[in-house]
């Protein structure tokens, strides 16, 4: 039911399904606000965010700490509901779902990659990759074959029986990416995926993301590092809870110029 791993970049039949939507974008945020109750006055972490991301895009989200970047990531990753506004993911309104339904969306549609890998220390690479399939309700045999396929696609199949402590940082992040890919989600959501890696490993991981993007995966990269962001096709800058610039780039290899000319957020 989820999009296959190597799907075509356009024309996913699912994006047109569901209730009537004006946009067939994979991600469609409209007027998203997020308020946190803090002290007497609430803190507005996001205010009026409009954003559309198409299937197959490679987007970097940049911003200083406290800019609302993490909050945006939580909303995009269905880890948190927005206070107001609507969020359509693949045509489905996910902004008012219950915890249980959100868990299902996270399981099927989103693959998370974290800065600190977040692998279970006591489980092997294989078991770590199988974990999302456990929650998806897959049988043992299906889990094994799909986990091995995912490990192979990121080049660490030979490490499948190793525990995270026996792996290098780069290998750990590859296992984590395999885990994100194993349910064949509609998008990968990576939060500072190279933050804990040396530059060589970071380069490998970024190359892997580029490769996955080239295979048709939608990749959202949250980072504060301009060099990392420069690998993306499109860079969003966020500040004080608003998207202040949205740049599209033709070639991903070039360096990103500073966000001197903020564009209107696409809607």
């Amino acid at each position, binding site marked *: 039911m989820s999009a296959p791993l190597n799907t075509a970049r356009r024309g996913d039949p699912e994006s047109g399904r569901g209730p009537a939507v004006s946009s067939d974008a994979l991600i469609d945020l409209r007027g998203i606000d997020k308020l946190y109750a803090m002290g007497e006055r609430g803190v507005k972490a996001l205010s009026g965010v409009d954003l559309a991301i198409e299937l197959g895009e490679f987007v970097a989200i940049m911003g200083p700490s406290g800019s609302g970047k993490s909050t945006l990531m*939580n909303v995009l990753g269905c880890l948190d509901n927005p206070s107001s506004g609507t969020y359509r993911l693949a045509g489905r309104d996910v902004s008012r779902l219950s915890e249980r339904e959100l868990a299902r969306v996270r399981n099927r549609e989103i693959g998370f990659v974290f800065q600190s890998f977040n692998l279970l220390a006591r489980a092997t690479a294989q078991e770590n990759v199988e974990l999302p399939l456990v929650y998806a309700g897959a049988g043992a045999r299906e889990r094994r074959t799909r986990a091995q396929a995912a490990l192979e696609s990121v080049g660490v199949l030979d490490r499948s029986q190793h525990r995270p402590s026996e792996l290098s940082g780069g290998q750990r992040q590859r296992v984590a990416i395999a885990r994100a890919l194993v349910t064949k989600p509609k998008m990968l959501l990576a939060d500072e995926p190279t933050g804990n890696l040396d530059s060589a490993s970071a380069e490998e991981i970024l190359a892997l993301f580029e490769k996955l993007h080239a295979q048709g995966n939608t990749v959202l990269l949250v980072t504060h590092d301009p060099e990392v962001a420069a690998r993306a096709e499109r860079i969003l800058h966020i500040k004080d809870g608003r998207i202040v610039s949205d740049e599209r780039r033709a070639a991903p290899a070039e360096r990103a110029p500073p966000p001197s000319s903020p564009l209107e957020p696409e809607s």
Partner: protein
Amino acid sequence: MKPLAFLRECFRMALQDLGSRPLRSVLSVLSFSLGIATSVVLVALGEGVRAGVKDILSTLGEGQIIVTPGRTTGIGGQRRAGRPVRIRYEDTEGLAAHLPSFQGVASYFDMRGGGASSYRYSIPWSPVRAVDREYFNVRQVGMVEGRWISDVEEEEGRWVAVLNEALAKVVFPEGGAIGQWIEWRGRRMTVVGVIRDEAVFPYTLFLPYRTVMEMADARYITGLIARPIPGESWARATRELQRVLGGLGGFDPNDANALEIEDNSAFTSRVEAVTTALHALVVGIAGVSLLLGGLGVANLMVIAVTERTREIGLRKALGAAPGSIFCQILCESLTVLSVGGLLGIAAGWTTCVALGSIRVSATYTAHARFDPASAALSLLGLALVAALASIIPARRAAALPAAEALRWE
């Protein structure tokens, strides 16, 4: 996911997580099983003490009224005033028919002095109590070996004897008293039984009433033991006894001095109150130790949940619904609790068997009674504590917000 497969998955993950913290898992299992074992043993000992005290009370004359004739009160010169009250043995035969409030009535005659000897051993001073066949039924004391005096032996005044336990131990130290002869005041009697009667002198010899009548003037009884019907008002029963005996002895039933009435119901009810309080205390301590064990497990699981906040966040990000997190934590604590509980009950049972019976005094042993009812009660308490100890941390884990849990350090 199918429920069964889901549950199996939960247990698999729970066991994996428990296995990854072996020391802590073992310690918490042990602490909980210790709590269970303690409560099982305490309850068993409490039951044993209660049953033991009940035994003692019955040998001391619980549920019986002992009457001995006294002297009538009276103003000087008045007829029958200040005379000793006498009740004939013949008159007491068939007395039970006139005492509807009583289960049974037995009269006896005590004789002092005289040594008793067997083929080899002797005791210089052994009192005799002449009894009828009802005595054993009314006293309800324990038969150590042999049997009580039969109807025929009583009626024909045969030379048979029943020994009190302490006497049997003196004159037949090697045991095997039954069938042997015992000599008292030059007469040889066949021993037919040994009883344990704690309300009389320990070296007492029990002989049939008619046998004693041949040896001594036993026309007038020394005393009378009567057992009221259970649930009968003791005050009413006592009045009835006074009225009937007053008719027999020719005295005023309202004369307080004519009969000495030994009624230990107040004493036994006090002892019973103490035992019940003691038992309640023991059960209370057992309950507290059970609760402490359960709280230990709850504490362990709450800590386990807190230190795994990030992991729970990750699981949620990967698609774990609150229900499956809840189930996983529940499975973990239930595993600890059920393993600990079973171990504890097994250990408690073993301890009860090992303790067996504790000899408190020469005549009283306390039995650690492992009774299934109290074990079932412990299990019930255990289940209650287990539910409490599991649900609190599991709910806590399930309610963690995913986004914050992921950022938790």
